[in-house]
């Protein structure tokens, strides 16, 4: 029976080629517009570290001014002071914690004929790599002794290693950064956390830093932060005064695999803040926060408002396309009332007719879905073109198989939804009504 309806459907589509083409086009364009934005939304809101996202927490403690919160209504600062980051790190050494910040360095290539160039750098502690599941191609990160002893060690990304050493294993080689010599201990494999959850200061979708070096080395060398530095209390003096100030600029993370760990860490944070209060710091009421990766992305609105607005408008657009398809299908059915009543008079049941027209709509839906995938691809290329010059956008306009499947399913569901009313009308044509006037 299904094959017979399929045949009828195809026949009917062919006999009304222009109308059918219009319907397929409407669904295809609607799906294309929708899926273009859904794809971007999907990539933007994706989980950058699915296996661990619920056990990694960003640490926030409220060292802000007694007169006003960091952010309304009562948000603690998103980063830590140097003082708190290093205190928590050393006092909480039973927990796996990471402190880090973004900076930049100038690389003097081993080949002296090449010009020096600037790279982004991350100053961090040894646990950064295992904690954030950072993959290595050669070598590994450094150990805790390197942090303590301020050893000048460095980890490169695959791309930088390609540029400097032609992709060879460079572990053990030396690298000159701002006139200082570092020993290469590791080279990363391809690693593109999207978004760059561990530091939401700059562009959320930019690539991770190109080099990684010990936090202690960066601070001793006074590497400037290129992220946000926010202060509520003035301080006098040079870099040492800055380190001792109430300015927040360090990202602090902790890994807490179990509920019990989390409870213990919360306890630890609370007692730390209480202790600091006795030194006259932390004038605000206790306001410690631990947010896991997905909560943190949500708090920071990593999905741009523009994308949410576009997503809403794109779905409304799809609704317009569906109303359009429903109207056209209805017109088609109404034009065929004579055929339908004849078939009904000859014994076809309501169910038969319903099935037949739904299948016809299904064919249009699938065709619209296929067209929709092509439209989505075009839409994504269009967006890529509009954003020429912003490299990170290329990573947001990638369609994976789940999006392709979603496009087809959405098209099919939309077409059937649009067909329900017209089909119901068709099935309810009374058998002889249209035959009288003949």
């Amino acid at each position, binding site marked *: 029976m299904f094959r017979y309806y399929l045949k009828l459907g195809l026949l009917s589509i062919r006999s009304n080629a222009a109308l059918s083409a219009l319907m397929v086009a*409407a669904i295809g364009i609607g799906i294309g517009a929708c899926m273009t934005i859904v794809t971007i939304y999907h990539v933007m809101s994706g989980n950058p570290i699915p296996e661990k996202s619920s056990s990694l927490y960003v640490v926030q403690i409220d060292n802000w001014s007694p007169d006003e919160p960091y952010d309304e209504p009562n948000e603690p600062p998103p980063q830590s002071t140097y003082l708190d980051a290093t205190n928590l790190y050393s006092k909480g050494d039973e927990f796996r914690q990471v402190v880090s910040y973004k900076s930049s360095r100038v690389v003097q290539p081993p080949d002296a004929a090449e010009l020096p160039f600037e790279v982004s750098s991350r100053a961090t502690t040894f646990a950064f790599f295992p904690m954030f599941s950072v993959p290595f191609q050669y070598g590994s990160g450094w150990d805790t002794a390197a942090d303590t002893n301020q050893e000048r060690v460095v980890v490169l990304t695959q791309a930088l290693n390609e540029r400097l050493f032609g992709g060879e294993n460079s572990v053990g080689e030396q690298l000159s950064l701002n006139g200082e010599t570092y020993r290469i201990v590791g080279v990363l494999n391809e690693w593109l956390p999207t978004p760059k959850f561990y530091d939401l200061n700059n562009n959320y979708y930019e690539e991770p830093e190109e080099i990684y070096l010990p936090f202690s080395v960066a601070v001793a060398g006074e590497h400037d932060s290129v992220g946000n530095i926010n202060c509520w209390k003035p301080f006098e003096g040079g870099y040492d005064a800055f380190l001792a100030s109430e300015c927040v600029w360090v990202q602090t993370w902790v890994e807490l695999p179990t509920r019990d760990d989390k409870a213990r860490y919360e306890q630890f944070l609370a007692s730390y803040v209480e202790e600091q209060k006795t030194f006259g710091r932390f004038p605000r009421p206790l306001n410690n926060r631990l947010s896991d990766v997905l909560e943190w992305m949500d708090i920071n609105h990593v999905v741009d408002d523009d994308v949410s607005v576009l997503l809403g*408008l794109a779905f409304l657009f799809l609704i317009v396309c569906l109303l359009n398809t429903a*109207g056209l299908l209805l017109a088609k059915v*109404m034009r065929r009332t004579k055929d339908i009543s004849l078939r009904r008079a000859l014994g076809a049941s309501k169910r038969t007719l319903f099935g037949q027209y739904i299948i016809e709509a299904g064919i249009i839906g699938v065709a619209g879905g296929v067209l929709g995938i092509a439209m989505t691809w075009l839409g994504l290329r269009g967006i890529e073109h509009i954003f020429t010059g912003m490299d990170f956008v290329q990573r947001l306009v990638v369609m994976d198989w789940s999006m392709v499947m979603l496009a087809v399913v959405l098209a099919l569901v939309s077409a059937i939804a649009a067909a329900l009313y017209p089909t119901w009308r068709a099935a309810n044509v009374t058998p002889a009504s249209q035959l009288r006037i003949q």
Partner: protein
Amino acid sequence: MELGPIWRSLTRNKAGSVLIALQIAVTLAIMVNAIAIMQERAEQMGRPSGTDEANIFTLSSTAFVPDTNIQSLIEEDLKLIRSQPGVVEAIATNSFPLRQGGSARGFQLEPGAGKETLTGAVYYTDEHAIEAFGTHLVDGANFAPNQVVWGGQNGDEWPANIIITESFAKTLFPDTAESAIGKTVFVDDTRPVQIIGIIDRLQAPWRNWGEIENTVIVPLRQEGQQQWYLVRTEPGAQDRIMPEVEELLAQSNKNRIIQSVRTMQEVRDRSYLSDNAMIKMLGFIVTLLILITGLGIVGLASFNVSRRTRQIGIRRALGATRAQVINYFRIENLLISGLGIAVGAVLAIALNLFLVNAFSLTPMSWYVIPLAMLAMWVVGQIAVIGPARRASRISPAIATRSG
């Protein structure tokens, strides 16, 4: 022409008309809000930065050898740039309008912790800034060369004087009609600084900042390894001077990198790239939407024409003119569109209220709705012309045929 028969015949195919009216309604709601957002972005992009954008370019210099003498490096660089023919003025600064990165400080009218502070973006530069940016002093005086000091990057030094924008002067002293010149404000809770000049306009570096017009020029040069140079040229000289300056600086000292050499126009384009993209995407959506709804109207009207072929023939046989037949379909469309447009206007307002609440968009201007309603009505009338003409060509002889 009598509306009665048209209305009665419409009610005989209610569903089809309601579907198209709904389609028009949702189309209108999307269109109105898309246009409101496009308008908001276009207005933001249209704000002047307060600089002589067409004749300014910027570049960054990063010294990387430890113990570089930053002071003499900057002084030599500026001397070199300023000596080039065609260069009007050049400064070293921590930032500039549209750059998207920079510094802001809190300023207060009374000294002491806990007093109300007003935030102003700060440009740390020197007495050449007004001329280099191409902004205009409207009150007071420029800095004297000896008022410019050197300082570290952590803000531990502060000069005694500042120049602020008119907008920031109004923010600081909203109630007084008298000039802000000579007034003292406090930075870092207690440090007094005197306002000695007021410029008409100079944007802060962040395009989305609410207080974008609140800017302060501070006569302090920061001794950081990374410096921005901003160069203003004579009209038309930029294309020639920009590569020359880049080359000169790169050659003059090998212990630093010159990068991000961009014209102010490029800086502006980068800054507003996403707003510009939003305008393009919304424009595209609106165009497609109108196209699809227009085609939907054509489809429905064609269907109505072919369904009523016989009736139209009879009317023509009874003496109706072609124009009357065309008018019939135009009025029919007017009724359907009218319903859709009325519902659509309500939907559009509701959607706008939602967007304003959820995404803190600017509420739309009142005239967007009537304009969009008019546009939608025109689209309907254009879409219906084809089928209506076809209807008018139906021969009266059709009436004589059966079925």
